[in-house]
């Protein structure tokens, strides 16, 4: 936020067109500040509160839940770390989400390109099937049976493979739309120069389609990331649990140990938040373009 005075801002020519409705009057500015703070509070307060109580002793929390700790302690963190299997769970979550999303996006492109270029018979039909596929809720009951029959039950590889399909429909739709906007002359030029199909996709199409790919990747990743039904149904070995099921079990075993619970929540969120902040610019850029 600029700290120059009101008059100066008004006199300086703007480099970008003003946002719709932005009028430089004081009440407006107060309104913007207020709403800005409210938005920040809306998202931050619940999380910050939990962070705060993770530093409190259980006694302090029960007596006065609203006041900050007089003497912050790390004991909750060591208790949470030793009681729960938090480290491996975070690694599992990252593994499952990233790999499944990556496979899903790769396959989406491999389907989308031929469909968009109509290189495959019944392209339109296949495309329409994927449009319907977006609405299909995950049929866990048959997948549970399938997982056992195909020996995908209770294994990392199996779990990842089971989570590839949900991201396919959206990926195919997004990438088909994008590929259609790439002129076919580009393809032809590449082929005539002897560029193979895969090389063309990887070297040329992927960088062009990067925003759509990131969206599809994130969508698929967040689905696996936020899945608790999957781990409940497809995994039985606690060493394979992702954070969703692991921390839920931890919660069940420690419902009244509020502060230790808070510490566990903070621990599993740290790597995620760090990663998230590190990649924020890419995320934002991609998501803004996504709505097309």
């Amino acid at each position: 936020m600029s700290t120059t005075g009101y008059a100066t801002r008004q006199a300086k020519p703007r480099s970008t067109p003003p946002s719709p409705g932005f009028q430089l009057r004081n009440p407006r500015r107060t309104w913007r500040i207020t709403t800005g703070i409210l938005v920040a509070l809306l998202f931050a307060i619940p999380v910050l509160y939990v962070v705060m109580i993770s530093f409190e002793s259980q006694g302090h929390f029960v007596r006065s839940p609203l006041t900050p700790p007089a003497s912050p302690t790390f004991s909750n963190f060591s208790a949470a770390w030793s009681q729960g299997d938090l480290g491996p769970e975070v690694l599992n979550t990252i593994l499952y989400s990233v790999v499944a999303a990556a496979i899903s996006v790769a396959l989406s492109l491999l389907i989308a390109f031929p469909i968009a270029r109509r290189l495959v018979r019944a392209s339109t039909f296949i495309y329409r099937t994927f449009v319907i596929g977006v609405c299909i809720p995950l049929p866990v009951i048959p997948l549970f049976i399938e997982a056992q029959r195909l020996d995908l039950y209770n294994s990392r590889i199996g779990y990842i493979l089971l989570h590839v399909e949900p991201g396919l429909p959206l990926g195919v739709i997004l990438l088909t739309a994008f590929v259609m906007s790439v002129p076919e002359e580009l393809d032809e030029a590449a082929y005539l120069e002897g560029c193979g199909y895969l090389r063309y996709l990887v070297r040329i199409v992927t960088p062009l389609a990067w925003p759509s790919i990131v969206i599809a990747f994130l969508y698929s990743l967040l689905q696996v990331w936020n899945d608790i039904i999957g781990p409940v149904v497809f995994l039985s070995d606690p060493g394979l649990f992702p954070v969703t099921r692991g921390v839920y079990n931890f919660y069940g075993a420690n419902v009244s140990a509020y502060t230790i619970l808070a510490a566990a929540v903070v621990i599993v969120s740290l790597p995620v938040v760090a990663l998230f902040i590190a990649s924020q610019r890419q995320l934002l850029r991609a998501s803004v373009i996504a709505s097309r």
Partner: protein
Amino acid sequence: MAATYRTPSKVRLLSRPSRLVMWLGVAIGLAFFLLFGIAPAVANIVISLTDYSGLAGASTNFTGLGNYTTLFTTQWPGFIGSLGDSLYFVVGVTVIQNAIALALAHRLQGTSRTASLLRILAFLPIVLGVTVVGIVWLLLFDPQSGPVQSVLGHAGFHSAFFGSGSLAMPLTIMVQVWQNLGFTMVVFIGGLKAIPPEIFEAADIDGAGGWRRFRRVTWPLMAPVVSVNITFAVIGSLTTYNLIYILTDGQFGTNTLGILAFNTAFGNTADLGLGASMSVILLLLAIIVALPLVAYLQHRERRLLA
């Protein structure tokens, strides 16, 4: 479908190995889709016509439409009630999530650093994951020691919050909305940014004030992104139940169809045939809701942008 297949000349441009790779790519992708998407959906229908129990050794009988009759005629397992809960949940989430996300998008569309930071913050809930979000809100609303109860207790108000038949659903809707605001907002921002500034300048010149400009100019031009967001919100709230599983597991009036189907098959009833029949109905509902919704929204889009 007549003009869909390209002439051979285009395909011939690809060398033979390339063609093979292309076919292989499509085949593998479709295999995943068929094996893990279509086949299970079909299998769901088949299982719903039996009394399959999941045990390899036990006998499974074909019961025809028996499961469906049970759902609609007997009060157990609460199918009709869960339709009501689902409706409540879907409408609540869709309307509230989109309304707030639109307001947020309007506020946070700027290029300033603050706006960027706040946009990132809005994504925090979905990135934290459903368990963390669930536990955070369960802690906040704990009826014994939580801060909300602490504050409201001074005013003499007591509630079981997530354990109360009246408050559990509104609270669950609120948490679901809170978690998903980021994504929805960002899509709206994309839509807002796609509107050329000249239109706003023209509206300003015509003297349109804030609200009027929104109604007459912004809102119609946002039709495409509104379609996308509403469709996603409806489908999402109808078919997913991860958050409900953690917050209330379908109790206290939050028994949407998804969680009921899951609990019937994988819970204390262990009746997979009955659970499958509910899954089939859920699938039909999703399709029935999605297709006309998409058609209507596309029609509206065309009409507004024509």
